[in-house]
């Protein structure tokens, strides 16, 4: 597991024996069955896995959106499992940026306002305009979500996620709802943020092509980490297509 980030040694996330069981109607689902994993400062990790492999659950727990059934999750020296709602809220507010598969923009707010709603509660945010410029949407500031294409909406979502200058950026199938060309634009935005702001970034996807843009690829199956691979050469998103 030799790579520059691992060598730099600063672990952002560390999980030990992470387990998650939940009920979906009458079914009991073991989403995670003991995940041990580290994510390092500044690296871009792609987590690959089929549907039901537990990757979204893992991302949600890392982001403080969901709680673990068992095991340990540390963010720096904070224990996210032991932390209550107050700590998780503060953690999400200060440290984490999210990008969702279905964007989850607030339809009654414009692009700028969708970003501003986050910057207004952050300590050291960038201006919403600057965040939108980073994702190439300088011209669409005052458009409502319904007036934007899917790719544009997702880039607004990225701008919203990064505008607070989070330490980590967590993206859940960010291209899942997009076509290949638009998906590449979104990935470029993510890569750009990772490169320029040194934000520790985790992208989960079932699309193996996307793995090529990562520093490190974590493969999940059936609730466990089945493989971790380091990319010797990180491809630019523009080189990708599917």
């Amino acid at each position, binding site marked *: 597991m030799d790579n520059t980030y691992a060598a730099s040694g600063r672990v952002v996330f560390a999980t030990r024996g992470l387990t998650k069981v939940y009920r979906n109607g009458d079914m009991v689902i073991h989403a995670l069955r003991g995940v041990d994993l580290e994510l390092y400062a500044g690296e871009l990790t792609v987590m690959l896995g089929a549907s039901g492999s537990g990757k979204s659950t893992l991302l949600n727990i890392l982001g403080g959106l969901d709680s673990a059934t068992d095991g340990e999750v540390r963010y720096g020296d904070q224990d996210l499992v032991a932390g209550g709602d107050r700590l998780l809220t503060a953690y999400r*507010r200060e440290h984490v940026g999210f990008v969702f598969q279905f964007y989850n923009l607030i339809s009654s707010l414009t692009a700028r306002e969708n970003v501003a*709603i986050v910057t207004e*509660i952050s300590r050291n945010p960038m201006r919403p305009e600057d965040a939108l410029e980073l994702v190439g949407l300088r011209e669409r500031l005052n458009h409502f979500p319904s007036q934007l294409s899917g790719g544009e909406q997702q880039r607004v979502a990225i701008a*919203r996620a990064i505008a607070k200058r989070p330490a980590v950026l967590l993206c859940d199938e960010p291209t899942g709802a997009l076509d290949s060309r638009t998906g590449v634009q979104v990935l470029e935005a993510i890569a750009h943020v990772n490169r320029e702001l040194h934000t520790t970034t985790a992208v989960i996807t079932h699309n193996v092509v996307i793995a090529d843009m990562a520093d490190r690829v974590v493969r999940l199956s059936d609730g466990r980490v089945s493989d971790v691979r380091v990319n010797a050469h990180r491809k630019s998103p523009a080189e990708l297509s599917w």
Partner: protein
Amino acid sequence: MRTIHRKLLRDLVELKGQVAAIAVVVAAGVMTLIIAVTTLDAISLTQDRFYRDYRFADVFVDLKRAPEGLAERLREIPGVDHVETRVSAPVRVEVPGYPDPIRGRLLSVPDGRQPDLNRLHLREGGLPESGRTDQVVISEPFSEAHDLRPGDTLTAIIRGRLETMTVSGVALSPEFVYQIGPADLLPDYERFGVLWMNRRALANAFGMDGAFNNAVLSLQAGADAAPVIDAVDALLARYGGTGAHDRDDQASHQFLTMELDQLRVTAVFLPTLFLGVAAFLLNVLMGRIVRTQRQQVAVLKAFGYSNGDMAVHYGLLTGLIVVIGLATGIALGAWAADALAAVYMEYFRFPAISFRLQPQVVLLAVAVATGAAALGTYRAVRGAVSLPPAEAMRPPAPETFRQGWLEGSRLGRLLDQPTRIIVRNLARHRMKSGLSVLGIGLSGALLLVGSYQFGAVDDMLDTQYRLMHTMDINLYFSEPTSAHAVAGLRHKPGVQHVEGFRNVPVRLVNGDRDYRTTILGMDAEPQLRRLIDTRGTPQRLPPEGLVLTDYLADYLGVRPGGTVQVEVMEGHRRTLEVALAATVSEPVGVSAYMERQALNRLMREGPAISGVWLLTDESQHGALYDALWDAPAIASIGLIGEAEAAIRDYIDDTVLVMMGVLLLLAGSITFAVAYNNARIAFAERSRELATLRVLGYTRGEVSWILLGEIAALTLLAIPLGWLLGTGFALALSEAMSTELFRVPFVITTQTYAFAAAGVLVATALSVLLILRRLRRLDMVSALKTVE
């Protein structure tokens, strides 16, 4: 402005239909409170001011005749402040161009000046000039009814002599705030008027020089009326005093008090009902709005908004809606209360209405509305934030459904898939379905409460005028007359049937309860004035003993078989023990009855009558009036048809106006609830419906899932509404029964049909609005957005 606040405003605009509907619910509840309390307050405040400023007397007494010197003795009674002696006389009046008989009451005022007590508020003109014998001040409602102004003339028949009088002024008096003639239930401004004349002129005409036959007294602050009344009675017994009484038995004050009591009941009952229902609906509706925003709550939480931030956000949303509702309710309530008070002022004649909006009422409305909204929002926000954001953001997990009995049954196999969806949704969400049914049911119940009185009042008046009072005309003689007079009247033009009656003013006493009324002595089986039981069957008067209306018997706490003390207030005043033989059920008035000859025996008199009832041919009324005019012994002529019209007008103007307002509010609430219900059902189902469209279902089939559910809820709600409404109406009937009216608890089929139709129309309108949205349902976007 912070972005989250901008979201708030945009949400308000986006949800405008629902916001308006909820605001209507709040406004309706608040409006009821403001109307009821403010109207009550306006009338009692106005009454207090008028009584104080125009020195309304505390004790009243009529007598045959006493020398003026006795006034000094009255003044010496401990506790008495002022004494005003007067001459009072019944009079028959003719106004040029008006055909019907008019009864009048002539009262003296000191020559050329205002009396010390019961002063006149002059609207126009002035008091009769000192020394003039041909000038009168007339009461304002009478002047309006006949368009009489100062300078106009009218004719009065004083002791059989026709006198032409000139109107010197038009006035109001605290003694006649509610201006009704003797033995009337309601004002008839055309056929009864009050006239004030110089004392000397009036005394001359009635042979009362240096004497008086009426006195009013005011009490010193803190003095008790009872000992003063006893002292006055003792002093005046020799002079034919008919018993002094305090304000409680003064006709105008009594009616006013009764009306205020009724308003007071209304002011508690209706706002409690409306605000209660509104609070419940507000709670449910706000809860649902917040729940539909579950996803947005999750996103905001994912970005670090705390539970507290969310609570504040939705608290503000609720707050703004409540403020819109409150402002509307308070403004409309104040406006309607002002209008309603003006209607009451038509019946209660005050110089000016003192109208104010009491801050504590407004505060109460604010507290109730805010509390209910806060509760609903709190529960929903707590529900929305208690889920971890990840869970809230996931498309909701398929809910647990089970096969119910319906699916296995033969009927169940006939159901198509969409219908199964409806059945299972309703069964799965029993709590939510139950609340919807309860909400719609409650609004239906309000519709019923708002409308049942229209039918019930009709029923009451029909009983009164079709079953009981079947005469056309009643005549009162100036004094008790021999029963032979009946024979003489049979031959007057157009008279078909005549029945004599004896009417004796009494005070009925049982223990510490007493009531002033009259005993009506009639034939054992009168044809023109029937007594009925609760089922409406005519009753025969027992040969001995007293018959009371059940309301009065209850009030006195006496049952058939028991006895009542009867204080006779006419002629020789005596107190007798009389057995209560039976009770009768009557919706209007509080009377006592006896067989006429038994009453004559009780009075130790021959076969005397106080008046007669006539059944006549209406086409000959002109000739009949002319014939009756010439009979000097006739003190008054009352027309029953006119009385019925007057009573119906009065009820239309007051009770039914109030009910009409309530009905309007109930209708708005019904629509608001039905619309919100439909709107939320649509929001909750749109994803599912879009999926079905993608799978190839037609728009009609998809609509059925939504509409079928709404229809099922509505159909369940209607019988519940009937049930609740019947309960509310029963409680209201009980609470509103007064001495004047006991609106029977009758709910007609039409009322039930009306309440059901109201709910159905409101639902149909809401469904039409929702169908427009359903047509615009965008399959793809509905599937993608999880909001």
